[in-house]
């Protein structure tokens, strides 16, 4: 793994002064994050935990309980696909709730899940009975180890701890309808819930992450996506909560804490209801919580969006005369259910609209476990070929050949992660 500081400098120089030569994957990402062009449009590793587990054929009951196995598996699968920047994720929404005693559903085939039919907080009085999170309980030590290993294994600035952001924690603890009722009808109770989530459940988890040397931690907040919450509700409740955690993390733990990842993400499912004004409002509110100034799309039904809207927003909100970078996420179900050619065509369309002036990063919003690997490989190949700068004047004339790749098991032999993965497949 290259020196992160060198990659940042190389990306900076390439994007601003001297666009010469081939960039390392990290330098390519840095150049793009500055709203500039790298040598190619980069493709960041997505949320891939269940998919990586399936590709590597490791059992769920080992994978989600063994930090080394989880991290090694994801790093290997992401490298097999050739993503430009790695990312390690787990079942981020569960760790705190599980440690506090929430009923869970465990599976042989997928990640553990909170049993929403038996919520931890059934009525208001239950909140008072919950004590502070004990970081020795549940899989909290595994969560800490995942973050520590991500840093130790050279993920550089892409290494981070993970936690469940406050509003999603509240939804997990009470169920979504009760959480929304509190926000709408009982703000005093909602404040109590946020206070508990931030200070008694999440902060103790962040504290043990910091003690283990983790420098930054991100809090997933899909329950706060649109239309689960309106942009106004995110602004009123989720943004201040994220900023409180950020401030406290910096002051007390010297840690960069980013709660609210995926909050205000525009996830309208019905194309007939797509609305530019609401989408832009969501982008603007999400930016208030982001560590970087970006137009962020994560889980939405992006395959049906008019991406000219996204480009328009990014150009309108330019940062130092350059459009703000676009984090363009291919919908996970689209990647799973499409034919390779449909994926290529979608990528061609997006690069044509958003990639010509730089500042475009590709991503996939949670790769489903059963997504065909050929589709993910196709997406990577298409982005790297069609997104090669300077972008071809007529992208429709650029052919993306059917992808060829070595099967994962053959590729894995001789890789540093091979032993851990092959051993995990053995029955005890």
């Amino acid at each position, binding site marked *: 793994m290259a020196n992160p500081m060198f990659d940042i400098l190389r990306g900076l120089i390439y994007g601003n002064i001297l666009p010469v030569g081939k960039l390392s994957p990290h330098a390519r990402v840095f150049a793009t994050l500055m709203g500039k062009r790298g040598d190619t449009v980069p493709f960041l590793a997505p949320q891939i935990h269940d998919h990586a587990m399936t590709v590597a054929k490791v059992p769920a009951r080992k994978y989600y309980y063994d930090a080394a196995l989880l991290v090694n598996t994801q790093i290997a699968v992401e490298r097999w696909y050739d993503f430009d920047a790695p990312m390690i994720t787990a079942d981020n929404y569960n760790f705190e709730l599980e440690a506090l005693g929430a009923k869970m559903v465990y599976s042989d085939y997928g990640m553990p899940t909170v049993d*929403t*039919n038996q919520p931890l907080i059934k009525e208001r009085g239950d909140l008072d009975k919950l004590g502070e999170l004990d970081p020795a309980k549940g899989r909290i030590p595994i969560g800490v180890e995942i973050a520590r290993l991500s840093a130790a294994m050279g993920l550089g600035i892409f290494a981070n701890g993970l936690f469940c952001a406050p509003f999603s924690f509240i939804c997990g603890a009470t*169920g*979504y*309808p009760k959480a*929304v*009722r509190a*926000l*709408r*009808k009982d703000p005093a109770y909602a404040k109590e819930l946020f206070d508990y989530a931030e200070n008694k459940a999440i902060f103790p988890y962040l504290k043990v992450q910091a003690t283990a040397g983790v420098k930054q931690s991100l809090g997933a907040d899909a329950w706060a996506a*649109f*239309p*689960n*919450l*309106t942009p106004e*509700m995110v602004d009123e409740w989720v943004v201040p909560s994220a900023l409180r955690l950020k401030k406290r993390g910096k002051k007390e733990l010297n840690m960069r804490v980013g709660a609210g990842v995926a909050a205000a993400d525009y996830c309208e*499912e*019905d194309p*007939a*209801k797509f*609305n530019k004004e*609401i989408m832009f409002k969501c982008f603007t509110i999400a930016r208030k919580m982001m560590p970087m100034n970006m137009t962020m799309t994560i889980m939405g*039904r992006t395959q049906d969006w008019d991406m000219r809207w996204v480009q328009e927003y990014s150009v309108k909100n330019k940062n130092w005369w350059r459009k703000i970078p676009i984090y363009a996420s291919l919908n996970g*179900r689209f990647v799973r259910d499409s034919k390779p050619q449909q994926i290529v065509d979608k990528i061609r369309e997006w690069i044509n609209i958003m990639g010509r002036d730089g500042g475009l990063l590709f991503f996939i919003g949670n790769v489903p476990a059963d997504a065909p690997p050929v589709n993910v490989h196709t997406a990577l190949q298409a982005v790297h070929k069609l997104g090669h700068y300077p972008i071809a004047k007529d992208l429709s004339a650029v052919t993306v050949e059917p992808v060829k790749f070595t099967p994962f098991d053959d590729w894995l032999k001789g890789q540093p992660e091979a032993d851990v993965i092959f051993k995990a497949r053995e029955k005890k």
Partner: protein
Amino acid sequence: MGEGLYQAISKAVTEGEEEEAIKRVEEALKNKLPPIEIMQKGIVAGISKAGELWKKNEYFLPDVIMAADAFKAAMAILKPRLEEKEGARKGKKVVIGVVQGDVHDLGKSLVIAMLTSAGFEVIDLGIDVPLQKFIDTAKAQKPDIIGLGAYMTTTMLEMKGIIAELEKQGLRKNLKVMVGGVPTSQEFADEVGADAWGKDALDAVQKALKL
């Protein structure tokens, strides 16, 4: 007085004012207004209005949750009176729920309102309902129809598993399955083995009557 009260009930349901909805339904019953009219002109009109606002992007999921709460609270007051009235001509029994992982309540509330108005006995399992709960209820309640709803492309796939499990456990013999929700279609209903697809609440009731 009747029209004014119906409008007040409708407004309370649309705006998610649960206590106001209960109060107005009680007032209407005290004034001896017909329960079926209270439901149709007040409660159903209110939840339908919420549906229209949702379609127009003027209402969002939290608004819909509030409206559905008020709808359920108002219906709970009215249900015993409707049953007294309907008594002998109680219709087919329908068990309905939104599949696991999905919390979209509005479409289901509309379907319940329409089915109840059409004389069906409806058991509402709520939202985010796990597969096992559908199976257990099918065994315990022996309904004529099970209605499965989903609003998201991710969650609609749950329906296939539920229908397969009903089949596996030999529960499909006297049981029809209906599916509905934004991402579903007749093709999807055929693919997962459902007996009918409800395009919207009205269509769902018309199809349920024919099953």
